[in-house]
């Protein structure tokens, strides 16, 4: 019998693989299993939905039923895979049901990191990593005024901008000295900070959150620097951790993510991983563009034409309307120096190695106009 390709996960990665595979092979049986509702939606839209006037419902482009018929795929929603039996090539569901696969694609995403905080308000801290989380968050926001955000990374800054522009009072706490500390140099961070402050965001840098206590109807954050912040709602966005547990228990190689090579193949020839859960040739890149490239290559491989994924330079747009920002951070293990030009209109920060090769950039404000020219000069992320 011809066992299906089983895709676990209905995020952008799972759907991208299904869609690309269908383009190449109209008939191969495809089964998509999802722990959630299985609807197709754009996760990046969650952090600017207020500005774009979107509700959680309107973000969902197509429900599972519509997607199943559009892509000619079987979809089982609210169906969590709890284990993989690679010897018998089956996945085991929560209800103990076993499903056979010909090839298995893990597209199970990442968890939001939870900081070890003290206090009786910790269970009230929100994280937003999918549209269901976002629905709870939006419901909680109704009628409230003050939001505290832990973490000034990409997602924290985007939510801060979106909420502040919608009239919320927003405090943001980060242990770094600037926003986007891992992506952009200090001068660029200072510029972004100033632009976000201009729309009302209040930053608390160089300090960590120690406790979240519920006091009356509010939450009170106590920071390591002794300050306290009162908020109606607390959102934590301090980073992502690929979901690796199930793969590890199945005996697959894991590191920061589920370890795969450029074929997106794990150390089992019939199991692949893609998206936020995967570490592709040593890189964990939790963004849309790498998913699009990986899904195309993987679909070709699954259709019988082994195709290694290659990543071009893949700049990321930061959705902070208060300060247009696009970043292409250099590899963390690459040595080099930032050269920064900055004025009132923006910041152009270019990262060069000692032979004068451009390895990365951060462009803010008007400088984003140089994006296309600079992208053409960057080396590929994965050749």
């Amino acid at each position, binding site marked *: 019998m011809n066992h299906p390709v089983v895709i676990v996960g209905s995020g*952008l990665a799972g759907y991208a693989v299904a869609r690309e595979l269908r*383009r190449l092979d109209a008939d191969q049986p495809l089964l998509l299993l999802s722990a959630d509702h299985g609807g197709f939606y754009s996760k990046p839209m969650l952090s600017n939905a207020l500005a*774009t006037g979107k509700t959680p419902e309107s973000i969902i482009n197509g429900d599972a039923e519509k997607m199943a018929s559009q892509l000619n795929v079987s979809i089982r929603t609210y169906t969590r895979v709890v284990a993989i039996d690679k010897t018998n090539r089956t996945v085991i569901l929560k209800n103990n049901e076993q499903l056979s696969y010909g090839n298995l694609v893990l597209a199970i995403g990442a968890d939001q990191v939870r900081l070890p905080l003290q206090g009786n308000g910790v269970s009230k801290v929100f994280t937003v990593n999918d549209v269901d989380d976002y629905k709870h968050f939006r419901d909680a926001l109704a009628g409230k005024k003050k939001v505290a955000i832990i973490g000034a990374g990409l997602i924290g800054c985007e939510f801060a901008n979106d909420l502040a522009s919608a009239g919320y009072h927003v405090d943001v706490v980060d242990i770094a000295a600037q926003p986007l500390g891992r992506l952009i140099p200090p001068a660029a961070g200072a510029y972004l900070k100033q632009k976000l402050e201009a729309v009302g965001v209040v930053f608390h840098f160089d300090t960590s959150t120690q406790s979240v206590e519920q006091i009356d109807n509010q939450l009170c954050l106590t920071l390591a620097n002794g300050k306290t912040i009162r908020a109606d709602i607390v959102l934590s966005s301090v980073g992502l951790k690929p979901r690796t547990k199930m793969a590890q228990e199945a005996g697959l190689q894991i590191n920061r993510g589920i370890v795969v090579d450029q074929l997106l193949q794990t150390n089992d020839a019939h199991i692949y991983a893609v998206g936020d859960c995967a570490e592709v040739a040593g890189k964990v890149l939790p963004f849309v*563009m790498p998913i699009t490239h990986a899904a195309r290559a993987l679909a070709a491989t699954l259709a019988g034409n082994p195709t290694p994924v290659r990543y071009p330079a893949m700049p990321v747009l930061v*959705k902070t309307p208060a300060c247009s920002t696009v970043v292409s951070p250099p590899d963390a293990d690459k040595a080099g120096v930032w050269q920064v030009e900055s004025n009132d209109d923006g910041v152009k920060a270019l990262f060069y190695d000692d032979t004068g090769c451009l390895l990365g950039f951060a462009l803010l404000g008007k400088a984003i106009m140089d994006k*296309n020219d600079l992208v*053409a000069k960057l080396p590929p992320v994965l050749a």
Partner: protein
Amino acid sequence: MKKYQCNICGFIYDEAVGDPAHGIKAGTSWEDIPESWACPDCGVNKADFEMVEI
């Protein structure tokens, strides 16, 4: 001239502006963009993710 928005990343394709960096001249109507074109910001295929007219 119309504008279209990528429903994954929010990129706006403005027919008046085109996407010259990727070989699409200013003034190119949405219908005339080749199927091989992908969203410059998130890489999704033109055919797969219909842009919505805005």
